[in-house]
Structure formats: structure tokens, C-alpha cells
């Protein structure tokens, strides 16, 4: 052995065997069940869109890094996660180039402009989705495909003429509007109430849970997303605070204010399972880079997302509000972090 070539460095001298790559591929593994589910529900078309989206994300990241003259790190898995999540957030019937454009935007403008992994203030995938929604609103809100063995809305709308074919959240929104509208005819209101009862039935809830409904590629099956989320929790890559407070806030607000027949008549379970809440709460609001680091900050972040989502769903212009809520709270993250510094060990006097 060479006596005089010992490495001299600062402590600690051992490290946990972990890396950005490990964390990111953990997220990819967690997303696999939902990917498989999307192919089952919407056919090979879903797989094609996911692959194109990932490919676009990886190539964009690599090209920009090369142009910037920094090490190419497309192997760290972060662009892959963005690619999958972006595809998960578009309807299965959109043209093939749309997720590609979304991914390019997400990586180029959402991430690399700020300096790459770790420096982006907003969740890149959600920013990409917002860009697509603003640019091609029609495709992004109508290119739905009924899931295999199910319907688009999760219930049968035969013989009902008050609503057209739409996703569960859109149907819910429509019938709630009809019931609240003084100009609705009695026939319309009767039909709307029937549909509402249908939506709240255990059969409809079960469809939302398994994913037998229409929606964005990766958001429909609550059970498959939850399987992946429990893996992430088990690996300590995410923890309960953000998704827990997010969903609890949505549950309480939609129960209190979401019903057509006054306060405390809303269906909280429907609102948790429908749309992109599960996907958003467990996979996108928990994005490490763009959410607070302190425990108290995470709770504020989760509650904030929940309040915004509920407001958008119940009174805003869109049937769904998960992605905008998270983006808005991303913007607030530095502010939240600054004001939620944990109390130091042994800190006394005024609370920190």
C-alpha cells in the first residue's frame, strides 16, 4: 500500500448509497403501474404518446446541455420523469405531436432556461401542460377516449340529453350548473338529478377507483397511482404531508361547498377520485425541486393546493384545477420556505 497517498477531506467519510438518479428512477418505477394501466384502458396509442413524450424530453435536455457546454445528464432520470408526467397529463386522443411539443417546452422553457435540474421554480411537466392547454384548448379538453370496458363519464348517459359525452368532472360540473340555474326546465332538472345520483353511486365511485373512465392518459386509475405512491412513501422519496393535506383540503371544501342542494351535501369521495387529484397530489405537488423543504411549509403548500383546486373546480372556469393550483403554489414556494423555518433545537422565546 502507498503510505503517503491518503485522501484528506472533510467529514463525513461515509455516505448513504443514494443519488438523484436513484430517486428519479424510484419515481419512474412508481409510475409503471399507471403506464401499464393507461395502455390497457386506451390501447397502444397511449404507450406511443408516452414514449414520444419521453423521447422528446430526453433529446431536448441532451441537446440544450450540449449547447450550453455542460455535462449531459439525461441518464439521471429527471427528464424521463418529466416526459412520463407530461404524457400523463394530456387526453389520449390528441395528435402525436402534441405531447412532443409539450415535452420540448417543459424541458427547454420549464427547466433548462433556469439552469437544469434543481433550479426550476415550476414543475416542468405542469408548465408544459399549461402551455398545451393555452395553445390548443379544444384538443386538450375534448380529445377523450372512453376507457376499455367503460364509458367516458364512468356512468351510462343513455337517454339523457342534458349532458354530452364528457369526463366525470365535466359531467358533474354541468349537472350542478343545470340544477342551480333558475332558467332550467323541470325536465332538465329531473334528468340532471338522475345523472347526479348516478355519479354518486357506488358503481361510479368504483369505476373512478379502478380507472374505467375517460380522462388524461395517466390520471384515471386511482388504485394504480396509489400502488406507486405507496412505493414512493415506503422508499421515503415522498411523505404524507403534501398529498395528505392537499386531498384532505379538497375533501372538506368539496363536501361543504360542492353540493347542489346547499352546504354539506357535496360528494368528497367523488372529488378526490375524479380528475387528476391523485396524480397531482402524489406525483406532482410532491416534486422536490418545486415544493417547500420544511415540514410546516409542506402543510401550507398542500392546503394551498387544495384550496385553489376546490375553488377552480367549484367556481372557476375549468372543470379541473389540479395543474394550475400546483403551479400557483410552486410560485409561492420560496415565500413559504422563508416563513416556515423550523424552530431550531433549543431555540427559545419567540417562535420561529
Amino acid at each position: 500500500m502507498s503510505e503517503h497517498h491518503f485522501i484528506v477531506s472533510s467529514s463525513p467519510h461515509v455516505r448513504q448509497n443514494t443519488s438523484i438518479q436513484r430517486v428519479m428512477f424510484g419515481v419512474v418505477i412508481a409510475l409503471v403501474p399507471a403506464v401499464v394501466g393507461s395502455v390497457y384502458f386506451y390501447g397502444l396509442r397511449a404507450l406511443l404518446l408516452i414514449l414520444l413524450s419521453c423521447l422528446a424530453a430526453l433529446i431536448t435536455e441532451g441537446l440544450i446541455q450540449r449547447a450550453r457546454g455542460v455535462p449531459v445528464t439525461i441518464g439521471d432520470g429527471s427528464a424521463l420523469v418529466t416526459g412520463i408526467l407530461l404524457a400523463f397529463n394530456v387526453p389520449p386522443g390528441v395528435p402525436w405531436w402534441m405531447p412532443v411539443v409539450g415535452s420540448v417546452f417543459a424541458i427547454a422553457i420549464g427547466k433548462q432556461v433556469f439552469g437544469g435540474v434543481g433550479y426550476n421554480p415550476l414543475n416542468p411537466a405542469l408548465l408544459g401542460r399549461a402551455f398545451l392547454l393555452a395553445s390548443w384548448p379544444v384538443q386538450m379538453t375534448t380529445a377523450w377516449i372512453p376507457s376499455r370496458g367503460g364509458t367516458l363519464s364512468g356512468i351510462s348517459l343513455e337517454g339523457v340529453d342534458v349532458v354530452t359525452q364528457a369526463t366525470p368532472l365535466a359531467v358533474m360540473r354541468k349537472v350542478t350548473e343545470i340544477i342551480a340555474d333558475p332558467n332550467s326546465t323541470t325536465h332538465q332538472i329531473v334528468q340532471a338529478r338522475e345523472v347526479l345520483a348516478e355519479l354518486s353511486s357506488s358503481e361510479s365511485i368504483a369505476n373512478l377507483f379502478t380507472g374505467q373512465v375517460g380522462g388524461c392518459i395517466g390520471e384515471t386509475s386511482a388504485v394504480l397511482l396509489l400502488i406507486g405512491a405507496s412505493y414512493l412513501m415506503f422508499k421515503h422519496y415522498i411523505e404524507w404531508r403534501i398529498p395528505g393535506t392537499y386531498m384532505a383540503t379538497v375533501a372538506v371544501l368539496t363536501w361543504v361547498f360542492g353540493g347542489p342542494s346547499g352546504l354539506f351535501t357535496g360528494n368528497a369521495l367523488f372529488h378526490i377520485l375524479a380528475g387528476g387529484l391523485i396524480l397531482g397530489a402524489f406525483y406532482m405537488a410532491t416534486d422536490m425541486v418545486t415544493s417547500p423543504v420544511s415540514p410546516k411549509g409542506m402543510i401550507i403548500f398542500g392546503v394551498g393546493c387544495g384550496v385553489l383546486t376546490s375553488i377552480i373546480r367549484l367556481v372557476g372556469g375549468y372543470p379541473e384545477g389540479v395543474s394550475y393550483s400546483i403551479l400557483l403554489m410552486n410560485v409561492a414556494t420560496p415565500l413559504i420556505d422563508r416563513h416556515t423555518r423550523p424552530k431550531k433545537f433549543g431555540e427559545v422565546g419567540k417562535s420561529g
Partner: protein
Amino acid sequence: MVKVGDEVKVGSVIGEASGFVSVPVHASISGKVTAVGRFPHPLGGEQQAVVIEGDGEDVWHESVQPRANADSLTPKDIVDIVRDAGIVGLGGAAFPTHVKLSPPDSKPIDTVILNGAECEPWLTADHRLMLERPGEVLEGLRLIMRALGCERGFVGIESNKPDAVAAMKAAVPQGAGIRVVMLQVKYPQGAEKQLIDALARRQVPAGGLPMDVGVVVQNVGTALAVYEAVVKGVPLIRRVVTITGTPVESPTNFMPRIGTPVKSLVEQAGGFKDDVSKVVSGGPMMGMTQFTTDVPVIKGTSGMLFLGPSDIDTRPPDPCIRCGHCVHACPMKLLPTTIEKYVMVEDIERAVEIGLNDCIECGSCAYVCPSHRRLVHQFKFGKYLAWELKKKADAAEKEKSN
């Protein structure tokens, strides 16, 4: 104190204390002084040292005599003996023990905690000591309690050492006011402030000392040294040292004399069977790397850890992804990632404001960081900058008042 050619015996004073927060050094073997000069030191660089060539006789100095009257000593007597015996904290920081035993009157001490939690992984020195010398360790604790005039003593041992817990429990004398407590296995359980929190349920205020909450913490090795000094009259000339690590042929705990070259302990442990990349004085989380094995065992050497190429992680740091794992890991409840960012832009005032100086450098944050960021390195650097700033501010203050 001594010059080349002097004959010394075991226990001869070879270095005198220069102030209140320092202690004398004693010859640990008998023989002839062959050199006085600067030699490599485990805390970095070179320090003044005395080289003694042993005569193999092990002749003890006449002052080393057992005390028959140990039971009738006053607290002041005990503190004086501890100081003159050159005793320092043997957990690693090597803070003079008599200072801890002389709290100001305004800070009465009601609890003594004996730290058997073994500060770091790999090191087993305290564990062995509790198994092999439980009675003497506890006698040492009783002497410390007497010196401080307090009635309550705890021995905190992590639950992964049930044999040590059993041995210590069996050795506790009736009515001594001493409780042996099993602690959760959790790094850094052996850190002073965390230990006080776990045992006495008191939080030392940020920037404060254990005595602020009426507690004194001592390492089990220190307790043994106190016993040996007070009862047997032996100054601090030896300690338990763990020689360990994957490249070491047979990892062993030794009780060498202070000043023994680390190299010869390694030979005793069978030498190396593999390449050595890093030599660490202390444990893997907080220890200091050495550039040579020509360093001696000093009073604060709890162990020498040798790490092979496969033990160390030289991956370069990646950008922080704000995962918050460091925040979870920090036992002082700080925000390591945020402090690091302030240090890196040299906004030291902000860094200090959010707790830079409260960092105990335990290494937990850097251990868990998926981006392999050099958090502790930055904090040490930041603390140095903070210290410089303070010095400058103090100087400016002085200037003004003149």
C-alpha cells in the same frame, strides 16, 4: 519542562498547563527524552511534542500512589486531582474535565449523565470499557457526582448494546442515585445535547451549554480516568482506542499509553489486508482525516478508522434538488440546504441567523444527500468566515471605544 537527555518515569509531568482551560501532560512510559520538537498531530499539521525512548522498565513516578482517604475528599480536592492528573473528555473533543466540574455558582448542577452511547458507528471503545470495567466506571461517576454535589446520575447506553446495559446495571451500587437507561439506536444519540434531551428531558438553549440546564455530561472513559486518578493516583496516561475499518486484518480495541504511534497499534492489529484510502481519527461521521499514520494516540483519540477504496464515496456533487432529506436528518432541526446556499454566496450574516453556528457537524445531512453535496465542508468553512467576521467586528468595536 523537559529537555533531550532527561530521564522520565511513568507519571512524570512533561508539559504544564498554560491556563484554566488546559491540563498538564504526563510521561506515559519511563525512559529517556530523545527529542523535543514539532511532530505530526492528529488534529492537523504539526504540534510541539516530546519523544521518549522507552527503557522497557516501566518505572512509575513516586507521586503515583493509591489514596486511602478517597472517601473523605472534598469536592475541591477531587477537582484538583482531576486537573493535576491531566484528565480531559475522552469522548473525542478532549475538553478539560476539571473545567466542567467547576461550574459557576450561578449554574447549579443537579444531574450527571455518563455517555455510553458511543458517538459514532464503527467505534466500540466505550462498549468494551463498559463490559470490562463497569464497577470502576461507576465509581468514577460517583466521584464526578460528589465533585458537583449532585444526587442524580444517568448512564445512557444505546439499545444495540444489551450486554453493556446488563453489565452496568449489575454493577450499580444500591442507593447511589444512578440509573442505567437504554436509549434508542439513532445517530447522533451520543451528541451531548441530544443525550440530555433523551435522558433529562431538557433542551439546551441554542448557543448555550449543558450547565445552563443543570447537567454535566461525561464520557464513560472519562469516568474511568477520574476513578484511576482519584483512587489509584494514576494520571491520564492511557485510554481505550479502537483500531478498525475494512482494510484492518483484525480490528481490535487497545488500551495503549498516550503517545503510542498509531502505526504500531496497526501492527498489533495484524496490519492491513487491503489498500487504505483514508485514515480517520475518530469515527466515520465526524472524524478527521490523517495524511500519515505517524501520528500518536492523543488524549482525544477514541479510535482510528481505516477506510478502503470501496468504503469511500468520491462522487462529485450534483445540484441540490431540494428533496429535504437533510432537513429531516438534522438533529438540530436546521435547514442544511438553505444554510449551505447562504454560505456559498458568502452571506454569512444570514447563514448565522438561521443557525450556522448551531450546527454540530454530525454529518447526518451530508450522509443522506442524494446530490452528494459537501454540506459539512461548507458549514465548517462558513463558521470560519463567521468567526473572522466577528473578530473584525470586535476589533472595530474596540477601535471605537478607544
